[in-house]
């Protein structure tokens, strides 16, 4: 049952050292404010699940919080590479991380399988791809009806999934619109769910009957953090901060500069700074 909490309390009650966590949002609605709160609370040895690690995991990896990263595309979207993640993989700095690499199709369907309570996802994929050789979790099954060999990957069952959404009702039901990504699947696959939202509205009456909604009883904690997706965007609220993505390429390229940026912009501030960061990006 959803409880309305402060962001720090929502993260403190739901994330533990050593957890498998999924902060999802496909380019859109990336839960950065919750990511920063998780960094401030200095969790250790996390297994980070996410289709596109993106800046949000580049920051956690750079801060030495990750033991393992499960992913399908490790780029800075529209810009280039993730430099903190590369430093960890190539130079084991600030610590070595294990990587489990999939395709998008596999990651998306592993969440779907987790949401469905199934042990694995079955699909047509990975034919001729070398990921099969380097990821022992990619296996195959034979269709009992046609004899076709299909790819199989284990379901994702995160300890906690964290997402950002546009609206919560007073009861704690959550509405996501625009590019909906894998958030619904990632939330329903998880043992615990934390959602940050742009705003709380009385209810969702009168809206389109087929909107993407997570009922309050599928969610553990809701925290109101306007601007909480910055530098990604919230459809209908504010635009993507493309300059911040470009700037990250420079900041993340140097270890000392990265540390200083994290100190100034994450460790010594609170979630209230996100509203200011999107002020110029609102339509």
């Amino acid at each position, binding site marked *: 049952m959803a409880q309305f909490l402060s962001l720090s309390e929502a993260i403190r009650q739901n994330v533990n050292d050593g957890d498998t966590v999924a902060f999802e949002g496909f380019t859109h609605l990336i839960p950065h404010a919750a990511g920063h709160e998780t960094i401030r609370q200095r969790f250790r040895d996390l297994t980070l699940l996410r289709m596109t690690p993106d800046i949000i995991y580049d920051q956690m990896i750079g801060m030495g919080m990750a033991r393992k990263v499960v992913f399908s595309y490790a780029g800075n979207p529209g810009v280039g590479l993730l430099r903190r993640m590369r430093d960890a993989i190539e130079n084991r700095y600030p610590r070595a991380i294990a990587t489990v690499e999939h395709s998008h199709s596999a990651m998306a*369907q592993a*969440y779907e399988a987790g949401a469905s309570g199934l042990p694995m996802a079955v699909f047509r*994929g990975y034919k001729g791809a070398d990921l099969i050789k380097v990821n022992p979790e990619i296996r195959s099954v034979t269709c009992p009806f046609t004899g076709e060999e299909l790819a199989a990957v284990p379901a994702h069952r995160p300890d906690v999934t964290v997402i950002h959404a546009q609206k919560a009702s007073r009861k704690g039901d959550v509405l996501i619109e625009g590019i909906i990504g894998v958030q619904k699947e990632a939330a329903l696959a998880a043992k615990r769910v934390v959602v940050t939202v742009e705003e709380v509205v009385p209810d969702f009456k009168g809206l389109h009957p087929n909107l993407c909604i997570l009922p309050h009883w599928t969610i553990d904690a809701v925290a109101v953090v306007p601007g909480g997706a910055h530098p990604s965007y919230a459809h209908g609220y504010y635009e*993507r901060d493309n300059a911040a993505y470009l700037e990250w390429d420079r900041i993340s390229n140097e270890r000392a500069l990265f540390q200083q940026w994290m100190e100034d912009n994450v460790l010594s501030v609170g979630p209230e700074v996100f509203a200011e960061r999107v002020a110029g990006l609102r339509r």
Partner: protein
Amino acid sequence: MTDFTPVEMMTIAAARALSSDDVCFVGIGAPSAACNVARLTHAPDITLIYESGTIGVAPDVLPLSIGDGELCETALTTVSVPEMFRYWLMGGRISIGFLGAAQLDRFGNINTTVIGDYAHPKVRLPGGGGAPEIASSCGEVFITLRQAQRAMVEKIDFFTSFGHGEGGNHRERLGLTTKGPTLLITDYAIWRPDPETKEFTVRRLHQGVTREQVQDTCGWKIRFADDLDETPPPTDLELGTLRDLQARTTAAHQRMV
């Protein structure tokens, strides 16, 4: 029109390969520009799909990422990412997948994962994203690439996306029923696979490009078609459309910065 860059020619040649009947899975960069030039010129009814779940998009400016708001706002519909990969891609509803590459070999196999050894890479690249299944599930695959020795190599370091493997009927042997790479468009030439060996063969040189230039920027010994001809240069409409699109894109992204 004679004044055009090799990359403009590449983009326009790629646009020409698309038609209004196509349902096209679009990657960012040159593929995105080519697909939208096609939509704005000779293929107004083409269905463009980005892996963020946006189907039937008609962006006024090119997106910076595959999940820009512009895509969702102009899409016919936006579906979840699992649905995108299951019903639309795996379901066989996409005729053309448009991919780029960090490394490419003569059989259209693509590497976007690592340079060097996987466990201890010299360079860790972003990885495959949707590409492994785009390469196997789309009806056919078009590839665009700027020619360079380090990009067009004898042997790729990692098979991110399977093309024609070792060539010949390798796809068939793996049980793949789709055509795989059928077209490679570079900044110098247009290539198609040999019907038997599946090795990419140069069929057309862009205007002003020599065989030596194509060979000098490619890491394998190239086969040229016997009836090699020249790519028609961009028309005023094609070049004007591409440049307007890029000017609108630059202006829009600067406004947001």
